[in-house]
């Protein structure tokens, strides 16, 4: 039995948030806002509660996948780093889908709905990830023969790593580190709604995936970052923050002509059959046109 690394890390999360709040008081007062922090933390608590309920089903699915494959890597030492790297690649694929497929975005959007960027934002985790079937991205590891408990532990460590990059208190890390690892600078870009930054830097731990697949954009210090989502939510209501995109999808599917209904599930956020809305690609193209004018 491997203990859940995320649960063990909670005291560390609390200590680091206290440290960042004290830093923000003197150095960056706009980094925190009490209602925003409360929303983030309660969403995090809800996510933990949902995880306690759905975690067993996720484990059962990984065990099923592991049992149904002739491959069995076992607990050899080298399986750990290999599993960690491959799990991070699976995270990249999941995260990219979570921004490019509206079905997955509906589950992920609450992580982005804060207009602030601080360590409490990191805890705005999904409540509906299991419902959205986000686990399908991790099943290939079990089919490849990795132990389910190892996959879950690597996923937990990955999540813990991602906590510290949700901060404005760290500028740049050493160059070699920025080249390989995901950092606060890279992840600020990911949370930005500035057109140039939309749908960039999907990495979890290793930024190399973005560099390899053409989704990397470095932070430009001359362009002040604005955080949140393209159509800002404008509420601290936790239920709205968690479910608003699911509700919007349901309305769109209901109203759309039959031949377009499914497109509102699998096309990118912002897509509409009548072109009345903007996707991130359209926003970036508009911004580039305006820059040239």
């Amino acid at each position, binding site marked *: 039995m491997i203990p859940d690394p995320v*649960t063990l890390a*909670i005291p560390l999360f*609390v200590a680091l*948030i*206290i440290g960042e*709040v*004290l830093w*923000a*008081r003197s150095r960056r*007062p*706009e980094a*925190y*806002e*009490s*209602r*925003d*922090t*409360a929303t983030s*933390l*309660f969403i*995090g*608590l809800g996510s*933990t*509660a949902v995880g*306690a309920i759905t975690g067993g089903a996720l484990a059962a699915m990984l065990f099923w996948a592991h049992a149904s494959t002739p491959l069995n890597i076992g607990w050899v030492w080298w399986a750990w780093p290999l599993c960690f790297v491959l799990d991070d690649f699976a995270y990249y694929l999941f995260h990219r889908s979570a921004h490019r497929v509206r079905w997955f975005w509906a589950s992920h959007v609450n992580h982005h709905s804060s*207009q*602030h960027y601080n360590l*409490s934002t990191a805890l705005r985790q999904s409540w509906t990830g299991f419902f959205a079937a986000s686990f399908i991205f991790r099943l290939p590891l079990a089919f490849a023969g990795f132990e389910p408990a190892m996959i879950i532990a690597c996923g937990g460590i990955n999540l813990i790593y991602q906590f510290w990059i949700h901060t404005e208190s760290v500028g740049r890390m050493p160059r070699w580190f920025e080249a390989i690892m995901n950092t606060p600078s890279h992840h600020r870009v990911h949370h930005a*709604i*500035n057109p140039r930054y939309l749908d960039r830097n999907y990495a979890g731990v290793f930024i190399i995936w973005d560099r390899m697949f053409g989704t990397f954009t470095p932070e430009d210090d001359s362009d*002040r970052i*604005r955080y*949140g989502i*393209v*159509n*800002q939510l*404008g*509420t*601290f209501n936790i239920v709205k923050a968690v479910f608003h995109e699911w509700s919007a999808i349901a309305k769109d599917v209901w109203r759309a002509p039959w031949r377009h209904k499914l497109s509102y599930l699998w096309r990118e956020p912002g897509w509409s059959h009548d072109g009345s*809305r*903007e996707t991130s690609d359209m*926003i970036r193209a*508009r911004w580039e046109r*305006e820059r040239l004018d």
Partner: protein
Amino acid sequence: MSAEIITIGASLLAILALVALVHFLGFSRGGVLQTDSDAEGFFRLAAGGFAPLDIAINDQRTGALARDANGRLAVLLAHGGSFIARVLGDEASFAWEGKRLSITDQTIGPRSLVLQFDNSAPDWVKGLASAK
């Protein structure tokens, strides 16, 4: 299961303590538009795009109204310590009460946005109530 309940209970206490800390350290103030370019930056991020031509910020610098080259109007609404931009629809209505301008539109929710201009508001803002 009891371990999970203890974890969630302890997390709840930690959350309440953290929110109280953030509040008492002064992070509950509303947002203030520091500069005009600050306001412009928010307007430019309005969904669907908005390039402000004229911007009128209220005296408390807690909200703003802008128009673009096509005559479209947008507002900045305070949200916590930040702002959100909303482009107003054709059905938006405006009413002056002394130096306070009330703006009502479905894009800004059920309540009106009230902007106070103790100092003189620009002419294009003064003319809104009569124009609509």
